């Protein structure tokens, strides 16, 4: 009961509250919220939407895992956004310009993406441990630089090529693709979605069954206690940031290996920030994050149907923002409530409640 109340109630309340808020917004703007919700649900059965949701869940899941590793030790990697972007460009360029046997080629692309993501994250990590620069500010700046670098690298006179109206990197040959599961007319599930699930399992094992995970969580719970216990804070920051960046580098892989085979100008933006929101919603737990990623993907992909009933689909962005804000508030309120309940109980058992 305690677990249910403390862990499940806040997100449920937050989602209901946000849905209510958006419902009110829809009523005010003259639309029928029930009908809007209805078309969103029925959209799941249409065309490739269901598969799109699964694929997008994989992408969001990886991004949220990357953020969650930092969160475990109170490290704010706001820079997932930049890390996956730089990793995507470099991996696409490398993948498109080498020839290797199938399988190895794919592995090399994945490896390059992870290493580049980790290197991009290494800059704020090193600045933090050597110069004491706050990682929030430095990763935000790195996000801007990543945008610029990505735009520069795909210029047609650097590594990119002009195709129609779009600038993109050279296409990765078929040996570097990752096969998916074709489901006929309803689309193809990206193979990398399963890698994402494996990453989630790996994350759980690392956090709960390894010494490193324990040290990471200890640093997050109380950095002074961890230091007293012989955990080097600087080392933990460095490793956590590199790991986070490495996983962030993989965010683009489902789409690049499974469908696009190239990085182009209209590569999706904002996945890193969604990852932050999802990690918060899922409380850094691999299961919770999976649920959050699924919710985000559902909202994103089903929103396409809203245009048919005359509702701007951006309402789901508002809903996502409202969910994050209300879920963190709800967690905090429940935490305070439980703290007070605990204090009352202790007071009762000690028989001092009347005096207090």
């Amino acid at each position, binding site marked *: 009961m305690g677990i249910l109340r403390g862990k499940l109630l806040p997100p449920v309340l937050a989602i209901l509250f946000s849905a209510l808020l958006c419902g009110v*917004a829809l009523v005010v*703007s003259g639309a029928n919220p029930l009908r809007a919700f209805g078309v969103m649900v029925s959209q799941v059965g249409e065309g490739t939407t269901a598969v799109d949701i699964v694929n997008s869940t994989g992408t969001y899941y990886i991004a949220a895992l990357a953020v969650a590793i930092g969160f475990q030790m109170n490290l*704010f990697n*706001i820079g997932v956004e930049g890390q996956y972007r730089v990793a995507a460009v470099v991996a696409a360029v490398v993948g498109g310009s080498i020839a290797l046997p199938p399988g190895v080629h794919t592995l090399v692309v994945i490896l390059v993406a992870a290493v580049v993501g980790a290197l991009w994250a290494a*800059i704020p990590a090193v*600045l933090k441990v050597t*110069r*004491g*620069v*706050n990682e*929030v*500010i*430095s990763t*935000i*700046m*790195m*996000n*801007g*630089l990543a*945008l*610029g*670098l990505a*735009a*520069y690298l795909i*210029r047609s006179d650097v590594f990119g090529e002009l195709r129609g109206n779009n600038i993109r990197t050279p296409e990765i040959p078929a040996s570097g693709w990752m096969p998916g599961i074709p489901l006929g007319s309803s689309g193809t599930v990206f193979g990398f979605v399963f890698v994402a699930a494996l990453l989630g399992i790996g994350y759980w094992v690392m956090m709960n069954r390894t010494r490193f995970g324990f040290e990471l969580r200890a640093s997050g719970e109380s950095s*002074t206690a961890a230091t007293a216990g012989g955990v080097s804070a600087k080392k933990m920051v460095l490793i956590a940031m590199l790991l986070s960046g490495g996983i962030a580098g993989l965010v683009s892989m489902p789409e690049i290996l499974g469908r696009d085979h190239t990085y182009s100008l209209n590569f999706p933006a904002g996945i890193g*920030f*969604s990852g*932050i*929101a999802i990690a*918060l919603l899922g409380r850094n737990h691999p299961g919770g994050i999976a649920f959050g990623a699924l919710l985000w993907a559902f909202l994103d992909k089903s929103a396409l149907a809203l245009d048919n009933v005359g509702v*701007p689909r*951006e*309402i*789901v*962005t*508002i*809903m*996502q*923002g*409202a969910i*994050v*804000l209300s879920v*963190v*508030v709800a967690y*905090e*309120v429940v935490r*305070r409530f439980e703290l007070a309940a605990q204090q009352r109980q202790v007071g009762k058992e000690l028989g001092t409640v009347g005096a207090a």
Partner: protein
Amino acid sequence: MSTSLMNPSEAPSTVPPPRRARRFPGWLVGVLGVAGAVVLISTTSYLTDVPQLTSTGTVQTAVRLALPILLAGLGGLWAERAGVVNIGLEGMMIMGTWGAAWAGYQWGPWAALVSAAVFGALGGLLHAIATVTFGVNHIVSGVAINLLGAGLAKYLSTLIFFPLSHNPRESPAVPKFDTYSTPLLSDWLGDLESQQRVGLSDVAGILRGLVTGVSPLTMVAVLLVIGTYLVLWRTRFGLRLRSCGENPVAAESLGVNVYRYKYLAVLASGALAGIGGAALVLNPGQPGYLEGQTNGRGFIGLAAMIFGNWRPGGLLGGAALFGYADGLQLRSGGKTFLALVYGAVLLLGAIVVWQLVRRRWFAAAGGIVAAVVLYAVYYSVDEVPSELTTYAPHLVTLVVLAAASQRLRMPAADGLVYRRG
């Protein structure tokens, strides 16, 4: 940062630390800084033969582009001085752009300013409720507000602007402010500028850029900077507000209502960020609201504030620098921008000499290496790609943070959740 880890039960020493007298008053540092910057830019302009560096047009564009950054940074300053980190500036700014366009196309530019401030303050109110009342982590709340602000602006613009402009990403045209010039002074400075005399013409060009085509918005922004300084550093209210950012427990014990001051500060912060958004919409180069118009300027404002060491004067310098780099790129392209790299080499040279005089060999060596690298860039590249120049502020901020993070001093309780009782 480390001060936050200090044991609160440690007995506070009653003996005040020996007061180190500041060698120069603040205004003198400012004047010297401005003079140094002008000398640096005109020297660069002379040596690289790029007169656009100090042309009237460049300075005018720079002022226009610096305004949103300045106002966002001012918003950040208010919040952080009261101890609330405001990453949500970007979201509040986006809400400001929408609010400005919505009121602006109907009732004119002054209404746009007011409406932008109100919309920005709404975002600030949300941030205050989450961080002050509910004690949510400041960064988390800020990220959420950025998501929410962007979503809200998109939703509202599809809903309200689409029927008018037939484009869900754009508002109808918003009327701009009339601009004012000082005719006699402008003409005289124009004459002086066209004579192309070393130094003198540069100063004339810069001054002419500052006094020609001045928008009321610029005056509002300047007044807001001065007002912020006076309110925060010269009034009782300001002292109390800053005490909430330094040591809220002590402030509360002296009878300051910390929650109320934090609320006021974050509301003001949102309003200022909103006005920063209005500065984008009311920029003569823009038709009105455009999706993605802020393009991370809220974050650059935050960077400018950090660059300025959480002080209004320094913030002004940071915003001027970032706006100038932006304006130069926009007016005359990557080739002229390269001259700035040359200017940076000169600046580094001066710093190295200074470090040598002070016998700091290590810092001097670092400066020499950096200068050589930059000069190599200047020598080997024809122009800086426009994709990269846009993000020059980000790079400068990173470098400043890396080089001077020990000298920057943020409010002691900045970013910490405070709970009464």
